[in-house]
Structure formats: structure tokens, C-alpha cells
């Protein structure tokens, strides 16, 4: 498996086409507007791939919104740049709302920005006017916004998944990691319980895996400080991984590409800086579901990760052989 080249994201994207929104308007009545965001189209390509593969396998239809722009993520929240963050996301809400009532943003950062923009627009006529000036038409912002956990929760019941998974991931102990942006600030995000998030558990349990209590499940990984102040990310991420390791988890499951980057891409830097020897695979929620459905790790882009998931995949393989 390691001798194969890493997943070519472009190939997969080509293979699992997601039609242009405008074209598919009436063809997919139950579909979701899909907002990948910048990370998913570059360094977190495997998150995008795994979402597309798993949704296709489950019969969920996604229509990528055309000509979407960067949501501004980290540097554009309002304390830095006036209304920049709201305006950037407002454009995306506007486009997404053209044909479908619900949109999905797998990136927790984009999800947070989109929901925040929606909240601000609902509360300020001035903002709505400003947005209308930019878009040259009144802004449409009331679309329902889901993150990837909500999407799968809505479309798949644990019973359905359990049947299809057939306990494929039994024997694994997965630490659910929510990070910050999916649930906070609670009154705007209105998703799960900000103090004690549990939304990933039902589906993870249905895959057969164990998902015990992980005390650092909503601690911050260091956010966008990777470039400007690396020490913050290294310290924060280190503790998350170390506690998971100490508690005997096989992997950390996340639904945010920035968390993934900090925990996975920089795990080497953590080891070098602190003299640790951590080897904790970091998997996306969609990848775990994909594994449970029997997809190959390569297809799901798990070999694109920096920290190898070899041991974990071996466990799954061994169980499959035993059964």
C-alpha cells in the first residue's frame, strides 16, 4: 500500500462528478448544495474525495455550487476586517440558495463562517444593504446550512449503517474530536452541545467501533496559528494527541481540515520539538464511514495522510479475515 502513489485527488474528483448547480437545478430535487471550500480543494483533498465517495455510495446527491469563493476563514472574522467575513460568505449563501434549500460545508471553518454570516445578515438591515450593493441584487441568505456530521445524521440512521457496516470496524477505539468551530459560539452554531458534543457517536458506534469518552474532544488544536505562531499549534495539538494516545485510542476522528492539518501534517514537527514519538492516525469522519462501508483506504485518500494508519488498517484487515 505504501508503494502506491498517493491518491490523485483530481482523478477521483473527475471520476465522481458533481454536476454544476445551474445545470442540475431540477434534476436533483433532494440534493444538497455543496460547498467544498479552499482547503478541500487543495491540502485537504482527501476529505473532499471521501465525502464525495461516501455520499455517492449512500445515494446522497451533492451539487457543487458554481464559482464559490473563499469564505475568509481565519483572518476574516469581523474583529479584523469589518464586514469582510460576512460579505465573503454572503456571496456563497446567495449562490447556494439558487436551487436547493439546504447546503453542506464539510469544512468546520467554512461552516462556522457561513452560519455566522447568516446570523449577522438576519440581524442587520445595513449589512443586507451592503451585501446587495456588492451582489447587485438582494441577498438570499436563509438557506439551511449543515456540516458533514449533520448531513450523514440526517440521511443515514445508525440502524441502516450498522446493517451495511456489519461490524467492520469492531475492535477499534476511536476518539471523536470536534474542535472549536463546529459548536461554538453555541448561540449562533446551534449544533450539538457546545460543552459536551456527542453528535459523531451514534454513527461511529454503528460502524462497530468503540468511541469512548475523550476529554479533549472540544479543545482547540491551535487554529490558524500554524504559520504565524507555530508553538501554539504544536503545544495545543500535542496535548490532544498525547491524551488520546495515553487513553489507548487507535485514531482521532475529526471533521475539520484545519484540525486535521495541525494534528496530522504537523505531528512530525510535534515529535521533533518535544522529543515525543507519537504515531496517532488522524481520520476524517467521512473516511471512517467509508471504511465501515468497505471502501479501500486508498480510495478514501487515507494514504495521503502524513501519519500512517497502517496499524489501524491492519486491525480492520485481521478482523475481516477472522470473520
Amino acid at each position: 500500500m505504501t508503494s502506491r502513489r498517493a491518491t490523485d485527488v483530481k482523478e477521483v474528483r473527475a471520476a465522481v462528478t458533481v454536476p454544476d448547480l445551474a445545470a442540475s437545478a431540477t434534476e436533483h430535487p433532494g440534493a444538497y448544495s455543496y460547498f467544498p471550500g479552499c482547503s478541500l480543494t487543495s491540502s485537504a483533498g482527501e476529505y473532499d474525495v471521501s465525502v464525495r465517495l461516501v455520499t455517492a455510495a449512500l445515494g446522497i446527491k451533492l451539487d457543487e455550487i458554481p464559482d464559490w469563493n473563499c469564505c475568509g476563514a481565519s483572518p476574516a472574522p469581523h474583529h479584523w476586517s469589518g464586514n469582510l467575513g460576512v460579505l465573503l460568505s454572503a456571496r456563497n449563501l446567495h449562490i447556494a440558495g439558487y436551487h436547493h434549500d439546504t447546503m453542506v460545508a464539510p469544512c468546520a471553518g467554512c461552516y462556522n463562517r457561513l452560519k455566522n454570516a447568516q446570523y449577522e445578515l438576519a440581524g442587520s438591515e445595513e449589512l443586507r444593504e451592503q451585501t446587495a450593493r456588492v451582489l447587485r441584487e438582494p441577498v438570499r441568505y436563509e438557506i439551511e446550512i449543515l456540516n458533514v456530521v449533520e448531513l450523514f445524521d440526517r440521511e443515514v440512521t445508525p440502524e441502516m449503517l450498522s446493517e451495511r457496516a456489519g461490524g467492520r470496524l469492531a475492535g477499534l477505539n476511536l476518539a471523536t474530536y470536534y474542535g472549536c468551530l463546529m459548536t461554538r459560539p453555541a448561540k449562533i452554531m446551534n449544533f450539538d452541545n457546545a460543552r459536551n458534543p456527542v453528535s459523531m457517536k451514534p454513527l461511529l458506534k454503528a460502524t462497530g467501533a468503540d468511541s469512548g469518552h475523550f476529554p479533549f474532544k472540544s479543545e482547540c488544536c491551535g487554529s490558524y496559528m500554524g504559520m504565524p505562531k507555530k508553538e501554539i499549534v504544536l503545544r495545543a495539538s500535542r496535548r490532544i494527541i498525547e491524551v488520546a494516545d495515553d487513553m489507548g485510542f487507535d485514531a482521532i476522528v475529526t471533521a475539520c481540515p484545519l484540525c486535521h492539518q495541525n494534528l496530522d501534517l504537523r505531528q512530525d514537527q510535534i515529535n521533533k520539538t518535544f522529543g515525543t514519538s507519537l504515531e496517532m492516525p488522524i481520520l476524517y469522519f467521512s473516511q471512517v464511514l467509508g471504511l465501515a462501508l468497505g471502501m479501500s483506504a486508498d480510495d478514501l485518500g487515507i494514504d495521503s495522510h502524513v501519519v500512517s494508519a497502517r496499524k489501524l488498517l491492519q486491525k480492520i484487515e485481521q478482523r475481516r479475515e477472522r470473520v
Partner: protein
Amino acid sequence: MTIHVSRTLTEAAEVVADIERRSGERVSTCYQCGRCTSTCTGTFAFDYPPHRIMRMLQLGQVDEVLNSRTIQLCFDCMTCSTRCPMNIDVANVIENAKMVADEQGVKGSEKEIRFFRLAFLQNVRRSGRLHEARLLTSFNLLNFKPFNDISLVPVILRRKKVHIVPPKIKNRGEIHRIFQEVNGGGKTK
């Protein structure tokens, strides 16, 4: 050091009231339990932990607050706000203190953060989407540290994790209009 509380409270009253108004919080609600500081992710890098920022606002020490590293470095993980027993959105107070500091022209000592923001927003302004490879190079240039994160480059390339060619959206005009609306966005205020 002596804090001349009657003086500081009088002189700082307006600024504190401004921060309170913007954030929707009263600083007197805080009873200094320190829970915000207990799990604050960034505290080790800050000069003042979050509960001390609240305390300084309570005592009118606004200069210290507005010139602190804390308000520049805080990255809004909101762990403090979620745990406060008095339901104070501490991160929001700090964020609004930063806004006031920005408006007063406080540059702050955290140049890396300013460069990061500059590099990021220039990047987005140009093409409408973030080009990660360029982000790293422009940040490193601004920061005069060309070899920062160089160890990650082979890894990223090998795993085909970034575009070499920047992504561009079609309707870049709208993006430019957005930045124009926000008073020359993309530049540090």
C-alpha cells in the same frame, strides 16, 4: 506597582463602556473565578491570561489591555466563553478590545499575525480562493523567514496536497467589490 483605581476607573470609563456596549457584556458580572484561564489554549503565549484581562477592565487598566499581546494573539477558540459560570462571552470581550485597539491605531507586537492576515487576504482578493502554496511563500517573505515550514514542502508535494497553479474564480469582480466595500480590505488597517 500601584494601581490608582479611582483614577484609572474615571479615565477609562468611556473605553470600558465602549467595549461593554460592543460585546454586550458587563465586566462587573465576572467574579474572577479563573475558569476561563484554566483551559485557555493560548494562555502560555499570552502576557495576560483571560481572567486578568477581565480584571484589568474591571479596574480601568485599559492601556494594559489595549497594548497586550493577549488581544492580538487570541484566536477565538471560545473555550473560555463556553465554560464561564456567569455565561460571559469572554472571547467576544477580548475581540472587541482588539477592535478598539485597532481603531486607536495600536499596531501591537505580533507582526507575524499581521503578515499572515495580509498574505491571506491578498491571496483571496487576487483569485477569489486561497492558493495555499502562495500563502506560505508570501507569508515567509513578509516575515523574512524563507525557510519556515520548509520541512513540510516535500511532504505536501509528494502527497499532491496543493495546487501549483492557483485556482481562480470567474466572477472576481464581485470579490473586488467586497474588498472595496470594506475600505481597502486586504491591507492592514
